[in-house]
Each structure stands twice: as structure tokens, then as C-alpha cells.
């Protein structure tokens, strides 16, 4: 029953998306208002039916309706309810359904937002988005259909989701975040295509495009960090990032989206670089498709890819079609967007944006090269190989330091054609601050890792500039308008909320990059075997193996070992474990971490000896890892500040001023 209902909703969504795409393009070329209204209605039909299909699937999962094939594959009577709910995205066909739901949310939101705005661009944009919607509805209706009936006889129980995915709570939030990032790029893509076709990219549309880009960018950033966090907390190898193809797949569109967010700030100011910004948005979307293909097609071996299937060729064909369409569109229409921007001098804020874009795109290209090189070699020469981590690190470290440095230099430099004197004035204080940071870094960390010191130096620069940019308007107001600290800050903040958000994001990124650099350079690890009751020392810590505990849970048996750790004036207990799932034959390791601002003590259980008399552990001491996750929250906070402005900056001039703050 539920299976059929789901099928029907998916088919309605497919029909609505296809029809909407046709009416949308027709509305654009005929400039027909009536057809646009039709397109909007069809778009709503798509959004509602797709949401209904997902609701049906969730109902089937919760009710353990094993007559639905997908439920019979990932459901299990032993699985706790919350895992049953999230097992929607524990396997391929379900996660494509989640993709459809997110698409419905984003496209639905765009439909409402654009209802009576920008009639020159909206039909084209909506039509483009509906083409994407139609493709995914087609995947769900056909090749990756989760609603097909289970082979009879209907099973009475299922295997439950992949054990690795059940093993940690982060699995509940990480995939949806990443999907919100990937799928959300559909909206800026559609908007960019709309601007290309109509040839009109005014300040208002650019502003909206930037917002539409910032939302998925924020989700993507969170998704990437959470992916690292999940790998760290679950996989038990003590690290969070290994330049794995699937990790790279999420990083590539992030790089180009970051570049686009920055270059989109320029057109509103100088009218330059419009075509470049649009190109970046198109590339970002193509990279999200490539990322999905890489994750889902099974062409790569990866720790993150659990759901491989035969949708690869279909996806590749779609990817190729989108790529060709983008190239043709750019080739024929980009002239229309050429801005008549002024030529800034070499040392100006514009140039720093330009270099920032080059570095981001260059890094994207080198990571892409390293990721796809094995595929190319296998196709061309038939040899199987992989590109080692050092390749990525060698490229990413210098580029990362340069980007961090620009994060400081860019906002410090004036726009346009500043005089040499102004440049020196602007850069003097941050240079001093960066040298102080360098000195402190060398004193605390030593000089054994030059790249880390370079990172600390650039981080000092960027931190000073970001903080100064937020503090100086407050000081100016206090001096010139004689406002109190609180009043001046409130006013400065409300007037520049978006910029403040941007600087907060910068600070978050600084925290993340410094944490990455230090944790990478100063990580220590060893493997030990400890007999029961004995103690082993490593790097200033004592590890005592006390006992093995066996915990029975409905869906798994957990064998955890109790290890008492003593060192640096602290004593705590860690319980790394091996989890044996009901339907799986191999035990899955589950590491345990004691985390402080200074360092993480990370224990991964390799083996429990016969008769529980000894254990083998992999001990990792990872400095400052916690800052990575904290940095992510700072980035989220900054992104929210930029997105949800309390007071609308440009229009507010005409609106009546809000009640005066504190003293004048």
C-alpha cells in the first residue's frame, strides 16, 4: 500500500517538474506572465509531492513495512527508533529521496521568494531548477526507486542499516548537512543561468545570488567539518581528513563557492567580474554533481562511500549534459555580462580578491587533478594506483597560508587606487601583530615545523585585521558621536551586520586552519599491548588496562575496555570498544576520546586478547583538535549574522529610524 502511494507521489513530482521546465522556458522566451504563473504552480506541485513521497517512506520505515524494498534492506526490528528514522539516508535509493526532499525545500523557497520579483530572470531560473528536479525525480522513479515491492515472500525482519553508520550520532546530522550544501547549489545555479540567458545581472540579482550561494555554502562548510568529525570519532585511525576522494568531492565545490562568494562582492561595487562570478557558480554546481557521482557510483574506494550502485552511467550522462550546456551557454552569452569596471592598481582590495579567487580555483584544480588522476590512469593505461596524501599536503599547505595571508591583507587594503602612504598605514599595524604572533608561536611551539609557523604568522595578520575591522567603527562612533561602548557597538553592528558576519566567518576559518596545521604537525601515536592491571607510559601519560566490560544492547553487543589514563595532573577513564552488530560478521571498532582545549587523548581498540587478559591499543595524542569543531561553530555564527540582518542596510535609510540607543 505505502509502496504504491510513494510511487504515485514520485510520478506526480516527475510530471510536475517536467511540465514546469517546459512552461518555464516558454514563459521566458515568450515573456508570458500567465505561463510564469503556471510554472510556479507546477513547481509547488513538485515540492509538495516530493515531500509527500518522503513522508510515505518515513512512515514505512517507522512501521517496519518490509513489503517496501528499501525498508527490507535497511530496516530492522532491533534498531532504535531514531536510527530507523535516519536510515532514510543510510543507503543509496533512500539518500536520493532525501536529495529530492531538500530539492523540494530549496526550489519551493525560491518559487515563493521570486513570485513577484525580477520577471526578466525568474522564468529561466525556475525552469533550469525544474530540469534538475525532473532529473532527480526520474532517478527516484526509475533506476534508484526505493518504493519497489520487496521480493516475496515479504521478510519478517531486515538487516538494519550499515553498522558503521549506526555507530555514531554524527551520522544523523552529517549527511543532511552535506546534502543541504550540495542540493542548495541548485538555486544559485539556476539564478546564474537565468542571468546568463537574459543577459541581465543587476545589483539586486547579484545580491540575491550571493545570499542564495551563502546558504548552501554554510551547510557545505558544516557538512565538511562534520564529515571530518565523524571520521575522527568513528573510524578509529586518529585523524579527520585523509584526502579521500569523497572528502575531496565535498571540498571542491566549497572552494569554488568560496571564490564565487568573494567575487560576487565586487560586481556590486565595481561592476567588474560579472562573467567570472557566474562561471564560478556554474562550476560549483557541476562540481557538486561530480562529487555525487564520485560518492555514489562506486568508481572510488573510499571510507565514506557506502552506497554504490549502477546509477553511475546515468549520472555521468547527466553530468556531461550539464557541463556541455554550461560551456555552450557561457561561450555564447558571457559577452552580455562584461562589466566596464575600472582598473584597480596592483595593491588594492580588488586585486587581493582576484588573487584569492585564483588561489581557490588553483587549489580546486590541483585537488581535482589528484583525485581524478587514478581514474584517468586506469582508463588510459589500465594500471591501478592512488595519489598519496603528501601530494595534497604539498599543494594545500602553501596555498592555505597564502589564502590566510590574503584574508588579512584584503580587508586591510582600501578599494580602488590607494596611495602608497595609505597602503603602508593600513598594513603597518597588522604586520606588527603578525610578527608578535610569529614570535609567540615560535616560543610555544618551537621552530621544527616552518609551515606551521608560517600559518601562525598569517593567522596573526588575519586575526588582527578582522578584529580591528570590527572594533574601529565602534571606536570612531565613541569618539565622534560621544556614544557609550554598548551604544556605539550596537549601532556599528546594526549598520554593518553583514560585514561583521563576514569577519566572524574569517575568524572561524583562522581557528580551523591553525588547528589543522598544529594538529597535523604535532600529532604523536603508538601501538601498545597492555596485560590486565598493568600500565604503559607514552608521551607523559600512563595508561592502565583495568577490565573488559560486555554491554548488551538490542541491536549490538558492545565489548568495551576500561583504561585509566593519568598524566599532566589529570586522571580519567576511557572506554574504547568493539561493537558486534546483529547482522554483521565483523566487529566495528569504536574509539574513545578525552578532549580538552590543549589536546585530545584518543584510544582506538585494536584487539582484545584471548580470555580478556590483554588488549592492544592504538594511542594518539592530537593537540588542539577541539578547536577545529569550535571553529566550525564560529563559522556557523558568522554565516547566520550575514544571512539574517536585523536591520536592512540599504533600504533602511528611507525607513524611519529605530528608537535611539542609549546616549547620543
Amino acid at each position, binding site marked *: 500500500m505505502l509502496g504504491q502511494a510513494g510511487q504515485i507521489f514520485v510520478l506526480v513530482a516527475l510530471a510536475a517538474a517536467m511540465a514546469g521546465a517546459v512552461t518555464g522556458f516558454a514563459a521566458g522566451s515568450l515573456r508570458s506572465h500567465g505561463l510564469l504563473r503556471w510554472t510556479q504552480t507546477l513547481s509547488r506541485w513538485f515540492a509538495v509531492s516530493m515531500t509527500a513521497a518522503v513522508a510515505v517512506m518515513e512512515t514505512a520505515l517507522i512501521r517496519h513495512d518490509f513489503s517496501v524494498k528499501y525498508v527490507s*534492506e535497511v530496516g530492522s526490528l532491533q534498531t532504535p527508533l531514531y536510527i530507523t528514522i535516519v536510515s532514510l539516508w543510510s543507503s543509496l535509493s533512500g539518500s536520493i529521496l532525501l536529495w529530492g526532499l531538500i530539492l523540494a525545500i530549496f526550489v519551493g523557497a525560491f518559487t515563493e521568494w521570486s513570485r513577484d520579483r525580477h520577471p526578466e530572470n525568474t522564468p529561466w531560473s525556475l525552469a533550469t531548477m525544474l530540469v534538475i528536479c525532473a532529473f532527480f525525480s526520474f532517478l527516484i522513479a526509475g533506476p534508484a526507486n526505493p518504493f519497489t515491492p520487496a521480493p516475496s515472500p515479504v521478510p519478517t525482519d531486515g538487516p538494519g542499516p550499515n553498522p558503521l553508520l549506526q555507530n555514531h550520532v554524527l551520522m544523523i546530522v552529517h549527511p543532511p548537512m552535506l546534502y543541504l550544501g550540495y542540493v542548495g547549489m541548485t538555486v544559485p545555479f539556476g539564478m546564474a543561468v537565468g542571468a546568463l540567458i537574459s543577459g541581465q545581472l543587476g545589483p539586486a540579482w547579484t545580491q540575491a545570488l550571493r545570499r542564495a550561494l551563502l546558504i548552501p555554502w554554510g551547510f557545505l562548510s558544516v557538512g565538511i567539518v562534520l564529515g571530518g568529525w565523524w571520521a575522527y570519532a568513528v573510524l578509529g585511525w586518529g585523524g579527520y581528513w585523509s584526502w579521500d576522494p569523497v572528502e575531496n568531492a565535498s571540498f571542491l565545490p566549497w572552494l569554488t563557492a568560496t571564490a564565487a562568494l568573494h567575487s560576487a562582492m565586487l560586481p556590486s561595487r565595481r561592476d567588474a567580474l560579472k562573467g567570472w562570478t557566474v562561471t564560478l557558480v556554474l562550476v560549483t554546481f557541476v562540481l557538486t554533481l561530480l562529487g555525487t557521482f564520485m560518492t555514489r557510483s562506486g568508481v572510488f574506494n573510499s571510507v565514506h562511500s557506502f552506497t554504490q550502485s549502477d546509477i553511475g552511467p546515468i549520472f555521468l550522462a547527466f553530468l556531461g549534459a550539464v557541463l556541455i550546456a554550461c560551456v555552450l551557454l557561457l561561450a555564447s552569452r558571457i559577452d552580455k555580462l562584461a562589466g566596464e569596471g575600472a582598473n584597480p592598481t596592483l595593491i588594492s582590495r580588488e586585486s587581493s580578491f*582576484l588573487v584569492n579567487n585564483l588561489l581557490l580555483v588553483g587549489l580546486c584544480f590541483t585537488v581535482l587533478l589528484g583525485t581524478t588522476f587514478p581514474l584517468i590512469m586506469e582508463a588510459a593505461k589500465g594500471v591501478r594506483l592512488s595519489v598519496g596524501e*603528501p*601530494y595534497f599536503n604539498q599543494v594545500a599547505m602553501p596555498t592555505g597560508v597564502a589564502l590566510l595571508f590574503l584574508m588579512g591583507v584584503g580587508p586591510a587594503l582600501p578599494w580602488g587606487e590607494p596611495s602608497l602612504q595609505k597602503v603602508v598605514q593600513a598594513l603597518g599595524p597588522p604586520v606588527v601583530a603578525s610578527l608578535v604572533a610569529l614570535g609567540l608561536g615560535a616560543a610555544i611551539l618551537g621552530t621544527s615545523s616552518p609551515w606551521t609557523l608560517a600559518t601562525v604568522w598569517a593567522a596573526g595578520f588575519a586575526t588582527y585585521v578582522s578584529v580591528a575591522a570590527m572594533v574601529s567603527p565602534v571606536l570612531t562612533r565613541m569618539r565622534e558621536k560621544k556614544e557609550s561602548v554598548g551604544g556605539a557597538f550596537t549601532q556599528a553592528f546594526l549598520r554593518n551586520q553583514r560585514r561583521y558576519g563576514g569577519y566572524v566567518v574569517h575568524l572561524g576559518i583562522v581557528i580551523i586552519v591553525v588547528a589543522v596545521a598544529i594538529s597535523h604537525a604535532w600529532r604523536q601515536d603508538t601501538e601498545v599491548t597492555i596485560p590486565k592491571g598493568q600500565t604503559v607510559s607514552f608521551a607523559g601519560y600512563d595508561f592502565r588496562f583495568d577490565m573488559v566490560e560486555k554491554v548488551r544492547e538490542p541491536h549490538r553487543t558492545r565489548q568495551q575496555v576500561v583504561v585509566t589514563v593519568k598524566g599532566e595532573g589529570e586522571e580519567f577513564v576511557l572506554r574504547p570498544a568493539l561493537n558486534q552488530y546483529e547482522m554483521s560478521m*565483523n566487529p566495528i*571498532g569504536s574509539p574513545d576520546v578525552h578532549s580538552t582545549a590543549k589536546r585530545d587523548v584518543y584510544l582506538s581498540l*585494536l584487539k582484545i586478547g584471548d580470555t580478556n587478559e590483554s588488549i592492544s591499543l592504538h594511542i594518539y595524542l592530537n593537540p588542539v583538535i577541539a578547536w577545529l569543531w569550535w571553529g566550525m561553530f564560529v563559522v556557523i555564527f558568522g554565516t547566520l549574522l550575514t544571512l539574517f540582518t536585523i536591520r536592512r542596510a540599504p533600504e533602511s535609510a528611507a525607513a524611519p529610524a529605530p528608537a535611539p540607543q542609549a546616549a547620543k
Partner: protein
Amino acid sequence: MNKKLPAILVVVAVVGVLGWLAMGSVGDNLVYYWTPTELHAAGAKAGEATVRLGGLVKPGSVTTEGNATLFLVTDGKDEVKVRTQEIPPQMFRECIGVVVEGTLGDDQVFESKKLLVKHDENYKAPTDSTVKCPDMPMPAKE
């Protein structure tokens, strides 16, 4: 024109440095993935490079020697002796698929720096295998 020249120089410099970094290091960091047959076929070339060797752990071949663990990795046609100083994880056992990263020594023993036990629970030996591995229970495929 004069004003554009510095900008072009910056572009060329950035692209050049990144390209140089990428091209220079991609060749040095390639890790070949070989089966025991391919490893032996590569002959002397195999002696220097870091290689990933994949196959099954041959039944009855696991021994220890001080801190080291020794075992044979087989693809059904050929086999290579592997030595690792790492403590093999709980999942490690006979007949399981492994990937070891390291180099083939002069004594024809493969020194493993990294031992990965394949999480792929559906790993199967090649069909023309001469190795007798009991059929592993097949957990439901996703």
C-alpha cells in the same frame, strides 16, 4: 596596458607556482595498487616503490616473530610474504581481504607500513582461485 601588466604578472605567477607544485609532486606521490601476481611481474621495479598490495590472507600462514606478524597475501595464483610491525586489528584473520602499503625488500618479504583490513564484507577471492577459503556468511547487501 601599463596598468594591466602587473595584474597579468600576478596571474601568471600564481598559476605557475601552483602548476609547478602540482606537477612536481604528483609523480613522486603515486602509489601503485598491485596484486601479488602483478607485484612479481614488475620484477626489480617493485623493489623501490611504495606499493599497495591487495589480496586474501592465506589460511594457515599467519605467524609471529617477536613484535612482527608475518602472513602470506594471495590472489589465488601467486602469493607474497608480508611482514608488519603493526598490531593487526581484531578483524584480521585468515581468508579476509587485506591491503598492505609498503615496499618489497631484497629478501622478497614485503615490509608493510600500513595494514588495512577490508571493510567490504562481501570480498570474494577470484573465481579461478586455488585457495580454499570457507564461504563467509553473506550479510545482506545494501
